[in-house]
């Protein structure tokens, strides 16, 4: 019974449309940023692409022939799932970091981006997967016949009036190709996720699960009364077969049976290594967290899908009477029992299983074909504008090619072998990748030679022991090849290589291929060395995880000639198109410093180069991307070269090598040894010269006026630094350093370009140099350290600059400390000097005071009828007052009072001079005004020179006549208190103070004094004494007080006045000297 | 110190405009003379017309100037010595060492 071709075809078409819609919807959702695919359930379902039509049909077939052994194929992946936590996560992380596009890309990247390895893996994948795709096509077309009732392979188109026959398999292949191209090759970027494809695959996984469960339930509960019923009946039907089927057969007693271990091993490898599995699990992974869900969800899926395999198989045998055609029990049982709907469901499940596999597989393999077979050829050509178009179409062609190859394989080989064996052939091929893959992840020494050798040998043996026999059995090759061996050499029999007979085909092939594969891989890896490129990649693979443990990558490469960002963009655009290129560079630019001209720091260039490679790798694979960028660089005249290793020994993975630590240690010794900056700088420069083989090193420091001075210059060939010295050409760089507060360096002065003149520098033989600011973190530079090398281009690595900067930081600290110390010293000296100066001034004033006091007369002369007294009270350290009396004869006494404007020694000495001058006049009969005149003319020059003035009152009193004649040179007016009156008389005459003009006319006046009259001469310290309120003592108080004490003797009057001043000011010390002279007439 | 320097017919005349030439200010005259000879001056006249007083330090400075001039084949002449100053030269016999003129003009004429 069947549905007829039209019905079957329309069901198929409808189903295809649904899947297309699902895929389209998912794609649309992704475009609008609301992915439905990015979740752990879809991820797990997409991994279930593992279950192909082989699972769908073949499991039942295998279960009915070899029993529960079929479970091994699912037990393997379930066990392998435990390893995903570390293994798959690691692979996914590396792949995301490196824009991996396929398993071939992954393996080739690990082994130094080897083009050959990529190609080899691709070829193995194509050859190994071809039978598998063929299997799918065969399964679908066969099931289609079963469902539609046709008994031939081709659909006759007689109804359309032609003899042509339409091959069903071909139609299927074309439909799948279109589907795959639409959802798998929309864009060139293969490292991007294909959400439409994933959605379709996940949906199909769901359908095939439902379908198989449906058939199982139908068989178990509708045809029979549950599983127990089937088992019971089967035991009755064929007890021997029952025993056999329910026993794990480890011995491999029949050629068809496969030992448990072999099955486990192959399936464990296949779940990760089949190109489509790698694709869905790694490339299509959107979130590492999904892996942990898939770890239990995927095995659960496998459990469910296999739940009814045994009941269906046994039910099939019971129903049909034998295990003939057991591969299609799933579809046949409903058909035989007349349940078309169930058969349709089963058919759709089968189609789903096959389509999902073919689509993913073809996309994965076409990517590999493009990147590892086509690209290496294309890369040799000059990139053209139409390259992106060519590449995408090549990729589409690849998909078509892969599916078609599968189709033709199916047409040629298809019928000769059991379905399940075709799958295993693929599994065995994929298993060849395992050593290189696992070794690459966990064994640092694994190298390219080992990987290529191992895979190649493993593949050859796989081909010889597995593929050849499969050809042979389909009659393509003479059968005696299997029985007699090639050229009759029994040792080389493909099924019993080197005489190893008695093993099943699979175990035999697996044994030899793995033996050769693994041993070659290990031997070559141990014997041969890794190239630099490989080492770099190893570091990347290992570093992906070690980086999280505070690993810092040290740049060991530099570009010999700088390349700009835009040049990289142009390059990328040639392969992936302008839009993608711009997008890639904007991702790169996001958190990096790029200036307006698109120039990046020299240290960034290797990163930019890697980013370009990574971006290109996402489309053309790592190996081709590397080749593209390398050829581009060589066209530019640039290349990657090893940075000069400033440290002679092998660096550790720590960011500080031993040498770096040593230099830092030495530097801090130098800095801490002395406070002499010159020694520090000289020693530091010599340390740098010695340790890093530099040729010249210069330190210039800013001075206080803002200019700069070269303070230390070390190295051979030193010359006076003037504007003709080559160092002066560094001026623009140094200005930049001061401005930017960061190091500027040129790793190859010969390529520095025309903007800055370096003629003399180059003539000196200098090829690389660096200028580093001497500054503390975040502060203005105190100066610049400049270092020059004549021998090494590329000397200045990030690491070296960091070291130099750190030394400069230490130096800046030292400079700051020393200059602060000098400033303190200076301040202290200044203070000391000021104190000393002050002390000297005080001393001078004391001396002046001493002189003054020594000048004052000890006792007033005694003269009849006159009571004379004088007293001076000095203020602290002040001296300038002077009074004196001279007895001229028995009746005449001269009295004077004076005040010199300064309080210095000079002033005091001038007073001494006054005194000597006055003494010299004692014998003369000069009048008061004449004496003032003499003093003025004698003292004028000295006073002018010393910038001093003297105010003086001079009086002569004749006790006989009672006449007082007096003259005043600008002094305070003395006052007379007449006995019996209260008012005071002020004595005033015209006259300028002494020392202003050479000739002055001093007026002279006379006044008669009577008994009881009191004359007071005073200095301004008396009247200008002030109290705490700022009030002056003043003339009135003086006069009033004088009146109140006029009756006392002269000495007591003076004391009383002083008391009054002390009372008034509230202090016993005065602000200024106060001198008082009293002449009282008795 | 108040010193005025004039150039007259190839001869530098240094007028010491101080009343005293003593230990307090003679160093300034010394450095002025040193400077003059250093810049290549050959013949110098020091006019002491205003100097009323000279002490041994002042004399010493003039002697130093004389020796300085001699080693450079130059001359140093003095003019305008007041009585007291002249007596100091005589006391120390230095009037025999220096060419002493009454006025600057006299000194200039006797070249």
């Amino acid at each position, binding site marked *: 019974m069947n549905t007829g071709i039209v019905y079957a075809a329309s069901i198929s078409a409808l189903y295809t449309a649904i899947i297309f819609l699902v895929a389209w919807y998912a794609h649309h959702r992704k475009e609008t940023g609301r992915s439905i695919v990015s979740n752990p359930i879809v991820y797990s379902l997409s991994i279930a692409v593992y279950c192909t039509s082989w699972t769908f049909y073949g499991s039942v077939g295998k279960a009915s022939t070899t029993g529960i052994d079929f479970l091994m194929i699912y037990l393997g992946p379930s066990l392998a799932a435990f390893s995903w936590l570390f293994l798959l996560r690691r692979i996914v992380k590396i792949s995301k970091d490196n824009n991996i596009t396929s398993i071939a890309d992954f393996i080739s990247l690990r082994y130094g981006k080897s083009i050959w390895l990529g190609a080899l893996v691709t070829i193995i994948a194509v050859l190994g997967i071809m039978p598998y795709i063929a299997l799918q096509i065969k399964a679908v077309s066969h099931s289609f016949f079963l469902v539609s009732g046709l008994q031939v392979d081709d659909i006759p188109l007689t109804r359309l009036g032609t003899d042509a026959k339409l091959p069903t398999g071909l139609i299927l292949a074309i439909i799948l190709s279109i589907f795959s191209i639409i959802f798998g090759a929309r864009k060139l970027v293969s490292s991007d996720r294909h959400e439409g494809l994933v959605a379709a695959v996940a949906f199909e996984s769901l359908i095939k699960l439902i379908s198989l469960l449906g058939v199982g339930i139908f068989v178990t509960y509708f045809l029979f009364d549950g599983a127990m019923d089937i088992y019971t009946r089967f035991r009755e039907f064929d007890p021997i077969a029952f025993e056999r089927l329910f026993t794990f057969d480890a011995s491999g007693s029949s050629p068809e049976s496969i030992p448990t271990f072999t099955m486990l091993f192959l399936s464990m490898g296949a779940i990760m290594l089949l190109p489509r599995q790698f694709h869905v699990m790694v490339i299509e992974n959107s979130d590492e967290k999904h892996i942990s869900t898939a770890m239990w969800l995927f095995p659960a899926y496998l459990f469910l899908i296999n739940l009814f395999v045994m009941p269906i198989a046994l039910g099939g045998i019971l129903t049909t009477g034998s295990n003939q055609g057991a591969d299609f029990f799933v579809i046949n049982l409903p058909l035989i029992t007349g349940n078309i709907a169930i058969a349709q469901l089963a058919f759709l499940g089968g189609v789903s299983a096959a389509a999902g596999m073919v689509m993913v597989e073809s996309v994965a393999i076409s990517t590999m074909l493009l990147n590892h077979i086509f690209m290496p050829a294309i890369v040799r050509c000059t990139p053209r504008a139409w390259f992106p178009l060519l590449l995408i179409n090549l990729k589409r062609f690849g998909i078509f090619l892969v599916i078609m190859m599968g189709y033709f394989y199916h047409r040629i080989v298809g019928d000769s072998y059991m379905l399940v064996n075709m799958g295993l052939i693929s599994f065995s091929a994929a298993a060849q990748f395992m050593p290189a893959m696992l070794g690459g992840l966990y064994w640092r020494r694994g190298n390219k030679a080992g990987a290529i050798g191992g895979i190649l040998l493993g593949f050859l043996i796989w081909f010889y022991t597995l593929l050849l026999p499969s050809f042979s059995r389909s009659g393509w090759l003479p059968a005696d090849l299997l029985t007699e061996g090639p050229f009759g050499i029994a040792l080389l029999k493909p099924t019993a290589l080197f005489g190893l007979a008695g093993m099943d085909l699979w175990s035999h092939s697996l044994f030899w291929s793995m033996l050769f594969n693994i041993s070659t891989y290990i031997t070559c890896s141990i014997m041969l060395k890794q190239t630099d490129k490989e080492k770099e990649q190893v570091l990347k693979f290992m570093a992906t995880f070690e980086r999280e443990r505070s690993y810092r990558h040290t740049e060991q490469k530099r570009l010999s000639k700088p390349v700009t960002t835009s040049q990289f963009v142009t390059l990328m655009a040639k392969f992936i198109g302008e839009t993608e290129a711009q997008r890639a560079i904007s991702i790169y630019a996001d958190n990096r410093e790029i200036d307006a001209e698109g120039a990046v720091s020299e240290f960034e260039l290797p990163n930019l180069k890697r980013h370009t490679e990574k971006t290109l790798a996402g489309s053309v694979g790592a190996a081709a991307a590397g080749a593209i960028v390398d050829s581009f660089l060589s066209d530019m005249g640039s290349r990657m070269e090893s940075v000069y290793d400033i440290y002679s020994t092998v660096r550790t993975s720590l960011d500080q090598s031993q040498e770096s630590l040593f230099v830092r240690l030495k530097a801090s010794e130098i800095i801490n040894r002395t406070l002499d900056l010159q020694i520090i700088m000289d020693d530091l420069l010599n340390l740098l010269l010695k340790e890093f083989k530099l040729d010249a090193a210069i330190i210039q420091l800013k001075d206080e006026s803002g200019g700069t001075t070269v303070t230390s210059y070390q190295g051979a060939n030193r010359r006076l630094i003037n504007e003709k010295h080559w160092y002066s050409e560094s001026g623009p760089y140094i200005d930049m350093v001061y401005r930017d507060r960061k190091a500027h360096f040129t790793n190859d002065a010969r390529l520095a370009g025309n903007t800055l003149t370096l003629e003399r520098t180059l003539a000196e033989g200098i090829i690389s140099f660096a200028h580093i600011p001497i500054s503390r973190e975040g502060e203005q530079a105190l100066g610049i350290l400049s270092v020059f090398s004549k021998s090494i281009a590329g000397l200045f690595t990030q690491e070296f600059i960091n070291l130099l900067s750190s030394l400069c930081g230490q130096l800046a600290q030292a400079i700051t400390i020393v200059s602060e110390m000098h400033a303190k010293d200076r301040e202290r000296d200044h203070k000391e000097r000021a104190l000393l100066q002050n002390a000297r001034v005080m001393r*001078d004033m004391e001396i002046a005071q001493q002189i003054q006091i020594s000048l004052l007369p000890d006792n007033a002369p005694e003269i009849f009828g006159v009571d004379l007294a004088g007293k001076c009270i000095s203020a602290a350290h002040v001296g300038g007052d002077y009074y004196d009396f001279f007895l001229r004869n028995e009746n005449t006494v001269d009295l004077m009072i004076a005040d010199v404007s300064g309080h210095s020694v000079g002033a005091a000495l*001038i007073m*001494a001079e006054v005194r*000597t001058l006055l003494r010299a006049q004692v014998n003369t009969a000069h009048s008061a005004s004449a004496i003032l005149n003499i003093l003025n003319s004698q003292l004028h020059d000295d006073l002018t020179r010393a910038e001093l003035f003297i105010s003086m009152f001079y009086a002569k009193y004749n006790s006989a006549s009672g006449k007082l004649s007096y003259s005043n040179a600008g002094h305070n007016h003395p006052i007379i208190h007449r006995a019996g009156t209260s008012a005071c008389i002020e004595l005033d005459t015209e006259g300028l103070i002494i020392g202003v003009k050479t000739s002055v006319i001093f007026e002279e006046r006379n006044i008669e004094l009577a008994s009881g009259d009191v004359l007071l001469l005073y200095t301004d310290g008396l009247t200008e004494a002030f109290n705490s309120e700022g009030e002056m003592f003043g003339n009135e108080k003086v006069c009033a007080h004088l009146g109140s004490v006029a009756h006392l003797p002269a000495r007591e009057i003076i004391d009383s006045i002083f008391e009054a001043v002390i009372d008034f000011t509230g202090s016993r010390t005065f602000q200024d000297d106060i001198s008082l002279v009293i002449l009282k007439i008795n | 110190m108040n010193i005025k320097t004039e150039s007259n017919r190839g001869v530098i005349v240094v007028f010491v405009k101080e009343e005293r030439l003593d230990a*307090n200010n003679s160093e300034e005259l010394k450095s002025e003379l040193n400077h003059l000879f250093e810049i290549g001056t050959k013949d110098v006249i020091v006019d002491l017309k205003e100097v009323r007083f000279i002490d*041994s330090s002042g004399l010493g400075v003039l002697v130093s100037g004389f020796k300085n001039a001699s080693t450079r084949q130059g001359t140093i002449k003095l003019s305008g010595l007041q009585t007291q100053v002249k007596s100091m030269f005589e006391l120390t016999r230095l009037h*025999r060492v220096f060419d002493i003129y009454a006025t600057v003009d006299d000194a200039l004429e006797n070249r």
Partner: protein
Amino acid sequence: MKKKIALEITIPNQTRYLGLIGKIGENMAREFDDTVCDRDVLASQLNIVLTESIVNAIKHANATDPNKEVHVRINVNDSEISIHVYDTGCGFDLNTIPSPCFDPGSLNEKGRGIYIIRSMMDSVEYRRTNGGNVLEMKKSLRHG
């Protein structure tokens, strides 16, 4: 009338006061009549002697140390002028100063001070006192 003038002055160890001290010396000489001696000559002699002796104290005995001081005592009476210049330094040896037979006309820039003092005063002595040294110079006055 019998004259007796005494003046005691302490000055800092600086040459800037030489002029004033000299002036004081000159003024003191003018206390005398011309009958006793030539006042003007005496004045200039006192000026020069005070100047030279104080310079000597400042520069040689006190070694130009600005923290030291010089004390001067001048006594004048009808028959004698005596000048005492006290220094607080380590002093000097009067005998290392060129002897009276030294040729004053030689071109030595230094060493005339003491010669000048000696030529103007009757006696010159230099001796240690408490806390320093004193240069004692005396000149007797002719009585007319």
